[in-house]
């Protein structure tokens, strides 16, 4: 009885040239991923199983990797609602990422922001043409680079001196000049807090040094907002949540540098993630938000 919902087209990434074989690559909602090639190259639409002919790769052709989604779930209204659903969001984010990760292992690409949905292939083709120069520039910028994530936290010891006794409320500050138990407590507490603040400041300075040092090995950097402790699962505050675009042949050096920095700055804890496809560096330069 229900009419078939109109189909939308989910866009994962754009790469240069003709696509390789995509057999078995499934994306959001388990749909088969397919390639749309446009602009400059022969416009074709290789289905799974039909080997793409590398000879056909036109010079500046761009290929969009897409799959079909149900607009009842991925239309504008539905997206608004579903993006508020963590389980839905998690599943879709992983599916999106799995496709991009698989494709990135084959060659350079520009990942798209999550939930880029068109009403049909024509829309994708038009976008490819319209944004060809911009996309090619971005592709060039991230080519041969991989993104590494480095999160720097205060080391557990740095901020958290165990909070002192609970009698604070009782002790009346400022009675008598010297020597009352209240005064002693207060001064102890004060120096404790000062020490904590110093430790925190030092950790912050260390984290900044870590970032500076790593930035020297990277082609580009981007700082994401530090993750809230409830999200990161870490007990101590995150100071730096950095992304580093590193040339593939410098990845080893980068990882070594991270380790060396962790030794050099014991008042911070460092986590390394990656390599990621260059999400954080595939931000459009033309059109839209600055």
């Amino acid at each position: 009885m229900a009419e078939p919902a109109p189909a939308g087209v989910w866009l994962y990434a754009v790469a240069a040239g003709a696509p390789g074989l995509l057999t078995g690559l499934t994306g959001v909602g388990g749909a088969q991923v397919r390639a749309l090639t446009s602009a400059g190259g022969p416009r074709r639409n290789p289905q799974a199983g039909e080997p793409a002919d590398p000879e056909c790769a036109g010079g500046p052709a761009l290929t969009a990797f897409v799959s079909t989604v149900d607009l009842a779930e991925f239309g504008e209204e539905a997206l608004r609602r579903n993006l508020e659903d963590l389980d839905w969001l998690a599943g879709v984010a992983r599916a999106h990422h799995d496709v991009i990760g698989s494709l990135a292992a084959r060659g350079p690409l520009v990942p798209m922001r999550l939930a880029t949905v068109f009403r049909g292939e024509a829309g994708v083709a038009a976008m490819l043409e319209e944004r060809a120069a911009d996309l090619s520039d971005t592709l060039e910028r991230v080519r041969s680079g991989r993104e590494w994530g480095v999160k720097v936290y205060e080391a557990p010891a740095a901020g958290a001196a165990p909070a002192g006794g609970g009698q604070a409320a009782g002790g009346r500050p400022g009675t008598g000049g010297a020597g009352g138990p209240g005064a002693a407590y207060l001064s102890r507490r004060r120096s404790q807090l000062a020490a904590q603040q110093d430790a925190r400041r030092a950790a912050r300075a260390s984290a900044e040094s870590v970032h500076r040092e790593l930035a020297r090995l990277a082609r580009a950097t981007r700082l994401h907002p530090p993750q809230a402790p409830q999200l990161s699962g870490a007990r101590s505050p995150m100071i730096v949540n950095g992304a580093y675009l590193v040339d593939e042949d410098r990845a080893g050096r980068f990882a070594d540098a991270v380790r060396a920095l962790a030794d050099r700055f014991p008042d911070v804890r460092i986590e390394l993630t990656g390599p990621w496809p260059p999400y954080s560096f595939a931000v459009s330069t033309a059109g839209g938000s600055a």
Partner: protein
Amino acid sequence: MSSGNEPVRGRASADREPITGQVVAGGGEPAPDPGPAEAADLPADEEIDVGRERIALVDLLDRVLAGGVVVAGEVTLSVADVDMVTVSLRALVSSVSALAGPDDGERTAGW
């Protein structure tokens, strides 16, 4: 030139997740000498406990929601206008804090 135990090489085979929050060192923990390549070959994905899943998800959302090229998809132009990052992270925060309680007190699943 990138051969041997170059971390990047591991990526192709492990087409799932990048490594999830490898503690490199600090706080006295010995740096696990395997590079990310080995770390990426974690046990079966199903075995990764909940805590780890969460951590990886946060890192992933940092990227897929705040990274990636924004193009005007016919459906999603206006959604992007609404600032998807805020929308989704709000969902994430409320959901996680509902699970974990205000003080991140209990860590489940053997984390």
